[in-house]
């Protein structure tokens, strides 16, 4: 459990970090995913650039109807932020569902999305929130939607030398109910499946439905068929069941020691129904 020799630099500013990263450095955030891999020598980066000392990456703020979460904001700061709890409760709920308190105290938003673990909690919420990911590279910044950011298991649109600078989520409008529900894998705490739901009502109907699913397949995704089924419906128990049955449509579910593909799909529908019901009751 001893990593290969590596160099370590802790720049104070993002600009400094960008230079080091262009030189082939590997970003280190909370280290909750990277360091275990290094200890097993499954990851052997030669130069770690610790983003943890960069003050202007650690923030949570509101601007122009959106919340901006800096890359090094920890899961527990997102979970416990009064701002996030009030303005984007779904994100706070997803943060609070991650692993255990020790993990949440150290793991970060940027690290989690960049790592793109297929069973991570944030992707479900970020998909449902239609979040934007702001990426900083040597040539400047670009912004990608969560839908485009996550490409495959552990694969994102990030190019070498690029970092996640912040994640942007909308301030939830009044009348929106949200819920995140997950079945944790008993060993790691990661999601066997996790479903994030936003539901808005108007005129006795569901006017908006956003459903993000994680754990089921290689990436967190939006269950569009289920969303469509729900939108425009009255949101009765029956409507919810019908919509929930569609969350796995067209999805190639993964199978492992902890859950077969068949069971995962079943769970996704069950958790979707529960999360939609819970969200709808708050809408």
């Amino acid at each position: 459990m001893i990593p290969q020799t590596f160099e370590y630099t802790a720049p104070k500013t993002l600009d400094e970090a960008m230079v080091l990263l262009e030189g082939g450095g590997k970003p280190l955030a909370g280290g909750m995913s990277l360091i275990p891999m290094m200890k097993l020598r499954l990851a052997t980066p030669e130069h770690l650039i610790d983003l943890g000392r960069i003050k202007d990456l650690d923030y949570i703020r509101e601007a122009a109807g959106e919340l901006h979460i800096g890359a090094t904001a920890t899961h527990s700061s997102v979970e416990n932020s009064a701002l996030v709890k009030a303005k984007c409760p779904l994100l706070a709920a997803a943060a609070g569902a991650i692993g255990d308190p020790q993990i949440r105290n150290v793991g970060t938003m940027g690290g989690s999305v960049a790592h793109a673990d297929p069973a991570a909690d944030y992707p479900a919420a970020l998909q449902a929130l239609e979040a934007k990911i702001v990426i900083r590279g040597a040539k400047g910044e670009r912004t990608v939607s969560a839908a485009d950011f996550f490409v495959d298991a552990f694969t994102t649109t990030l190019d070498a030398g690029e970092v996640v600078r912040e994640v942007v989520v909308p301030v939830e409008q009044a009348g929106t109910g949200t819920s995140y529900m997950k079945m944790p894998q008993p060993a790691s705490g990661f999601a066997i499946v996790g479903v994030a739901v936003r539901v808005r009502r108007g005129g006795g109907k569901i006017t908006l439905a956003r459903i993000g699913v994680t754990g089921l397949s290689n990436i967190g995704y939006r269950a569009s068929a289920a969303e469509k089924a729900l939108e425009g419906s009255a949101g009765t128990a029956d409507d919810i069941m019908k919509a929930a049955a569609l969350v796995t449509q067209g999805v190639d579910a993964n199978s492992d020691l902890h859950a077969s593909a068949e069971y995962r799909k079943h769970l996704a529908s069950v958790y979707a129904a529960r999360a939609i019901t819970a969200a709808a009751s708050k809408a």
Partner: protein
Amino acid sequence: MLARAIPGCEGLEQTGPDEYRMKMKMALASLSGAFEGKVKITDSNPPSSFRLLVEGSSKIGFVKGEGLLTLTASGENTDISYEGDAQIGGTMAAIGQRLIDGTSKMMIKKFFEKLTAESAS
């Protein structure tokens, strides 16, 4: 063509009629490793099917994949289907459970995407 289709393949050197020595770099999120191994084609049954055997080992363990590729003409296109089995061992196996299914699917997907792209060009 094979060399370009196998994800991470950095060089293929023919060592026998249907056998190649391969250098492969696997980089997946923070996991990375340089593998050395061999690729073997057996049960070659052109043009409809062949069996591909890929074996690689590195400091972090070994991988072994075996698959039957079946090519069927459907109109202008050729459908490729795959049936196979992947095995990992060594340190990788220790943490592989949660990752193996997803990542092997991804590798296979990449392989076919590249294969399709290569055959198209």
